[in-house]
């Protein structure tokens, strides 16, 4: 008959970081049931830690509650997240007959350029089987300073992120396996207003 690691031993291992006996440790290595029990206990320990650390203190709650009155009295204070820059499509290779089929071969590959104030977003979309690969370059004007990396998200019609990727220090990013469809793009920057592309068609 198999003798599993006891619940008390597993609890001590997870919650007290107590070493198991050599025999119990060896059994744990080879027993899927015991490893499952250990994994569940570790998840419970994590949940309890998150619960403790996430509980807002009274001071934080009071501050959040006071925001309502502040916003009503001053409707337009700092709105870093609300003040989005809208990037608009300024160039699309599919609208350039002379470029059809040039570069990267195949008419299905296309490039687009979106612009907003001091920033441009260049995209190249290419097929990868039934999905698409989206490569992008976030170009910030020289005198606007460096603001990379940035967080690039493609959102569904409910505004919820479907794809999410971080640019490198030069603003370059790549998203693999994108389903063709209509998205909204949101680009969160560290020191500047977010950039929004309200309609991004991936065909």
């Amino acid at each position, binding site marked *: 008959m198999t003798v599993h690691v006891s*619940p*008390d031993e597993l*609890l*001590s291992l997870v*919650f*007290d970081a107590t070493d198991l006996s050599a025999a119990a440790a060896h059994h744990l290595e080879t027993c899927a049931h015991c490893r*499952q029990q250990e*994994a*569940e*206990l570790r*998840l*419970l320990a994590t*949940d*309890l*830690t*998150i*619960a*403790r*650390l*996430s*509980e*807002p*203190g009274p001071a*934080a*709650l009071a*501050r*959040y*509650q006071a*925001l*309502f*009155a*502040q*916003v*009503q009295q001053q*409707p337009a*204070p700092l*709105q*870093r*997240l*609300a003040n989005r820059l809208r990037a608009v499509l300024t160039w699309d290779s599919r609208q350039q007959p002379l470029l059809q089929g040039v570069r990267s071969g195949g008419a299905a590959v296309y490039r687009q350029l979106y612009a907003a104030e001091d920033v441009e977003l260049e995209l190249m979309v290419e097929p990868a089987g039934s999905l698409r690969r989206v490569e992008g370059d976030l170009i910030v004007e020289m005198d606007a300073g460096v603001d990379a*990396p940035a*967080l690039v998200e493609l959102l569904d019609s*409910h*505004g*919820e*992120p479907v794809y*999410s990727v*971080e640019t490198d220090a030069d603003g370059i990013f790549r998203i693999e396996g994108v389903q063709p469809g209509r998205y909204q793009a*949101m680009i*969160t*920057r*560290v020191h500047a207003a*977010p950039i929004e592309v309200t309609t991004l068609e991936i065909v």
Partner: protein
Amino acid sequence: MIQLRPSHQDEPSTTNLVHRCLQGDANAWGQLVARYARLVHAVPVRHGLAPHEVDDVGQEVFLALAQNLHTIDDPERLPGWLVTTARRVTWRVIQRRRHEESLDQFADSGEEERRTTLPVARMPTPEDLLVTWGRQEVLTQGMARLQPRCRELLTRLFLDHDEPSYDEISAALGLPKGSIGPTRNRCLQQLRTILEGLGVGAVG
């Protein structure tokens, strides 16, 4: 995925609270904050941010919510909106901290006094974060169903910000210090059984 649900079914719906907020009802705003502050905080916590950074994220997210309540098309999707917004704000805080740390490292001539950073695993997806919140909601329900003695012990052991010592817990609960460990184990097993009954517990 765990179904999200309010802890108390008789509480007003999120839609009701949002509509009342839009009519200027500060009390409704207070209820909205109380309902979702833990959800918002759980996002920077999952990313390993320090307590003061967690509060900063909460401040920015609830400010954004107060300013954008009128743009929320479907208030029942508010948890998703809050998680997405908290994730962006958290990402910015992490980037700023990395930048400051790189400057600190550049300024430091030696290795000593290098700032300790919290380990940050891969960035959780919004789905991960909503699952985390779902588990937290069920954990709250599970704790409420524990026998009072167990609930009090586990609360003091795991949920008290002051992290009391075994001596303090022993004095507060009138429990011999040597009994705390075994009682804790029994209570944790009881909690696991309750959570499994609520649909939480399985891994993978």
